[in-house]
């Protein structure tokens, strides 16, 4: 099976450290890593390939330095890597990102399965994979924690959908969003890591796409815009209640959230 895994480079600290004075994120200082959700999605893809044969291709959209996460993925065992990078892609929201990915994927041999992580630790929207499926006109499965090859061109997927678990047969090709939090991604072998450093990375730019209209990409192609960021109301330093101030019932209500937190 030919599988494509979309990955993202994210700052290593998910909390993101803030400049205390300005309230902006010190993102540039943080070492970039492979989004942990994508690491598990890749592990899912690698295990499926190891089981049924085929290839795993990884693809990322980002600045040229994002090639580092592609090398990481190749060290883990991916067979090939694609970097989608263009100054015009910067500042994309979830929808513009998904559209860019869909255009890039259309320039490649069609994969039978596209695997994404549930969300990124920095953007945190979890919207890219579903939109990618829509742009590619492919069926989409979210919350997938188990993938089993089924007869014909089908996959048997187990999905966590809130309070229920769904087992369903999906036709190939399709797009899945992995939610396999308990899986531990493999650590690369030294030999693969050394060879990954020299691995070829395929490049894709705007000019390679079918749709080369720059207004569809990056900031220009994003329908949403952050107009303001602010720090949430401080949560530390609440006045300490003494035990005589709260009855058992009042405390119980506070615990269960039936009563608003004391405002101090």
């Amino acid at each position, binding site marked *: 099976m030919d599988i494509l895994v979309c990955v993202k480079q994210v700052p290593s600290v998910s909390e993101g*450290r803030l400049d205390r004075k300005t309230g902006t994120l*010190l993102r540039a200082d943080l*070492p970039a890593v492979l989004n942990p959700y994508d690491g598990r999605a890749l592990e899912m893809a690698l295990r499926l390939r190891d089981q049924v044969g085929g290839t795993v291709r990884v693809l990322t959209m980002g600045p040229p330095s994002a090639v580092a996460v592609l090398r990481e993925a190749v060290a883990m065992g991916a067979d090939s890597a694609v970097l989608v990078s263009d100054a015009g892609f910067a500042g994309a929201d979830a929808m513009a990102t998904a559209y860019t990915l869909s255009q890039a994927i259309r320039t490649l041999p069609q994969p039978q399965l596209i695997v994404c992580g549930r969300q990124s630790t920095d953007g945190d929207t979890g919207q890219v994979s579903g939109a990618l499926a829509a742009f590619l006109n492919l069926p989409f499965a979210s919350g997938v924690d188990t993938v089993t090859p089924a007869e014909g061109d089908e996959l048997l997927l187990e999905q966590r959908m809130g309070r229920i678990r769904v087992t369903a047969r999906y036709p190939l090709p399709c797009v899945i969003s992995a939610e396999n939090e308990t899986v531990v991604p493999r*650590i690369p*072998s*030294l030999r*693969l*890591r050394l060879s990954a450093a020299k691995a070829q990375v395929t490049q894709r730019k705007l000019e390679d796409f079918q749709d080369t209209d720059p207004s569809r990409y990056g900031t220009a192609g994003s329908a949403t815009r952050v107009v303001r960021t602010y720090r949430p109301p401080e949560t530390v330093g609440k006045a300490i209640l003494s035990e005589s101030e709260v009855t058992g019932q009042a405390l119980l209500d506070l615990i269960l959230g039936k009563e608003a937190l004391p405002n101090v």
Partner: protein
Amino acid sequence: MSNHILPLDDAYTAYLRDESRLTGKAQSISFPTDEASVLEQLEALRQAGTPVTIQGGQTGISGGAVAQGGHILNLSRMNKVLDISWDADGTALLRAQPGLTMMEMRQAAAAFSGRRRVFWPPEPTSLTATVGGAAATLAKGILSGTGEETYIQSLRLVTEDGAVRTLTQGDGLLEQVLGTEGLPGVFTEVTLRLIPEAAEIWGICVFFEDFDPLCGFVDSLCQDKPQELAVAEYMDASLLKLADSRRSTMVRLKALPEFPATGGAVYLELHGDEASVMAAADKVLELAILSGCEDSQIWAVSGASEVERLRELRIAAQELVGMHYDGLEAGLPRLVTDMTFPQESFRDTAARYRDDPAELDIGCCVYGHILNNHLTASLLPQDAAQHAWAVAMLRRWAGISLSQGGQTAGSYGIGSLQRQLLEGLLPQEKLERCRRVTQELSPNRTFNRSAVL
């Protein structure tokens, strides 16, 4: 509230112990927040003639922070970074209160240095250890290599008479005071020298089926040591087994896949520029394959955060062993060696630590530095009887170490535990230095009376 002397009631029993698993006693405790309150509290205690035990993060394994009566001066709330600035050669100076933890120090260093990442080489493995405790014991983690450099630029010392001194590198006194386990006085400020991280850091963990090929690998690595080799740590089969059994309940181990082999492992770090690290990694790969490893038995990660994930395995050793003692009857202190055997090879020492306890059917985890052959044996007795046998074994090993001109204790501190266990076998030079500097600075022995001497 924080700056008062409090009676040591039930709410504070947590402060009567440290990672040695010894439990002590005390009449009072205080949590000063600055030097002025330290001075004020010491003044009050001096009038009453109360001995004082100085406490940092309570992470020591030699009982240095365990009080035997008197007052506990807990410095954990003196945890502010006072100043951090660039110095020559891309190094930085971080001036902090003594209770700053390693975790807080790292955060402060990262926030300050941005892309030019700096670190403190002696950083002990416990993230909750404090800089004051590290300066007092000269404890070292896995990154410091084999050098003697302390990376401590200066400190402020309050002696028992209430005098405040600033000691600076090169003045002679600083070097005398460092590592004397709090006997001369209380550190109220410590200035650390942080140095730049290498551009490229790789972590490599080589797993072996058996002890012999592992020793072969270590021998060949030591004969042809790449310059980039900054860390080389051993983890024996029983440590790997213990880690495996705790995998599901320990966050730091959960992020690691199943071990490809469990006969022992060697954890290496290569620090340098990209090209040199890759060349060294090539070399390591060749040596490991020659020692009979399969590709899948050699894990490799790169980049600071991935390296930390792999490092966890070695760092977890101390905690894993500590957990063993949780299951034992209370009061049995932790038995850990801190000895060197200068006339032996890695194979000799590792084999002794493996075979001697096995003969008595006592569990033992062995881990530690390969390059200077400073291995640690953590004994895991099942009951008081085995504990007594293990103590005797520890003393026998200390005798061998002394006969080879080795150090029998000191790099984790002597504290009150090693003092008791290794009575008569302790490194005289260090004891003499502690005695001398205490006599000079705090002759009434107000501080840490039950430790070392």
